[in-house]
């Protein structure tokens, strides 16, 4: 019993000793390559904001067009809320420009995503047939030091996907 207790104690001692380099190693892997799951890491919120005169951010405007000629604006956060913010931005950009998603499939067809959008729209707008969906990216510059705060809006890019073609 005494020997077993001694072995147990030594195992715990070693566990603590090796865990520190292992924790550092997984942090290095996460920073250098990609974050493993699970990993003992908290969000870093990297990057800083220059102490400038304005705050810059990008917003999207999404419209759905129906076969009866009507159109509705969709709130991106509500429409695709289950997809995390940064990934959603990346996904939408690549989807509408027909490019692969970072770290994803190399040659995506986006067929499933198109079907997903279409079925979601059909559920949202009953008795209507969605024909196409458009997206526009706008850059906003907010001059917060001015009174009242001035907002500058510039169109960066836009894209359109027609459901019928898919």
């Amino acid at each position, binding site marked *: 019993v005494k020997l077993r207790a001694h072995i147990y104690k030594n195992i715990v001692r070693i566990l603590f000793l090796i865990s520190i380099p292992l924790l550092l190693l997984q942090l290095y892997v996460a920073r250098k390559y*990609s974050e493993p799951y699970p990993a003992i890491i908290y969000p870093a*919120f990297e*990057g*800083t904001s220059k102490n400038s005169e304005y705050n810059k951010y990008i917003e999207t405007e999404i419209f759905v067009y129906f076969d009866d000629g009507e159109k509705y604006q969709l709130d991106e956060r509500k429409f695709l809320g289950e997809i995390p913010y940064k990934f959603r931005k990346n996904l939408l950009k690549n989807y509408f420009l027909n490019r692969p998603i970072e770290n994803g499939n190399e040659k995506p067809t986006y067929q499933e995503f198109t079907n997903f959008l279409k079925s979601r729209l059909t559920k949202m707008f009953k008795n209507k047939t969605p024909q196409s969906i458009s997206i526009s990216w706008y850059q906003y510059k907010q001059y917060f030091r001015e009174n009242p705060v001035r907002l500058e809006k510039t169109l960066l890019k836009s894209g359109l996907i027609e459901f019928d073609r898919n």
Partner: protein
Amino acid sequence: MTWTRILKKYDGWVFNSFPMTPEALGVYRIIYCLYVLLITGVPNWTWISEMPNDIYTPPPLSLASFFSGFPGYYFLLSLTICLGLLYVILLFGYKTKIVSILVSISYIVGNSFLYSRGKIDHTDLLLVLIPLIMAFSNWGARFSIDSMCVSGKKQETHSWPVTFIALIMGFAYFSAGLPKLLGGWLNPSTHAVKGILYSYFYSQGHQSYMAPFFIKVQSDLFWELLDYFTVFYEVSFLFVVVLPTVFRTYIYFALIFHLMVLLMLNITFTENMVAYLLFINWPLFLNFLSRIKLNRFLSQFATVRSMVLFGIIVLFYYLEIGASPLSQLLMIIKLPPPITLLLVGLLLATLNVYFFLKNYTKSQLIKYIMP
């Protein structure tokens, strides 16, 4: 310093930093399970099956990377039910060690697919790992079905898993602070917290609580101090793990830190609170429980019959309603769940500190601070 003295110090840190009695471990196990079952809610992963496989981007080093798409509905439903039932079994302390490990494994499997949507969420990290680590403390030694099976026999418990959780917690904070330190947060010509606030406020619509107030604050000194405080607090968290009393103070500040983050950036981190609970003054808390005779109830509630009954209720509730019961209740009475939870946590922590200081004599306090 001789080798023996170093080893003695090291052992003192590993084995005696956060001593837990079998009663304290048993009560903590029950609180942890109730926290998940009633407050955060058992995760329901079934909705992931609706996600299109085009967006399947698992972390390269994860279980999900072995698969080419999101799993089907019935697999995820089984996993959800399995986790819910495992939590009930853990609550009643049946085969505690193996069940604790299975809880963490099920959680990790489900989350691996959940985080295959391009982002890993870090809020539930400790919630997932606690059972896996605490399994080795023998937290089923009291107030459990296991303890009834071996009644009369002294069960050995261990406190080192608590130190290990402290180490993990300290490192997690450190991993958040180090990139900030290296990434220019201390540069006085930039304001990182302010930048995050602007990004969250305008781009992500985080405009609740006190965010509209903070967005108007234009003091450079205020924002720079916040940057400095955040970096210092997060980086130093790892180093205070070897100083139990300072670590406990950091835990108290963590509650204030989360409250500030919630009020300003509308980011919730309430899942951590159950991990912080490990570091309260347990003798004081157990004394309180025995005064209100709750420990007598806890000794009697762990039966197979009550476990089965509770399991059926939990299963029915989560399959029918599916959301955290406390969140539902708070929303009915129009109280925002995360902020209420954090304020209650902060109040309890403050009471814990108050009674601790009140009950201890000066010499006991000095001994406690410098053991």
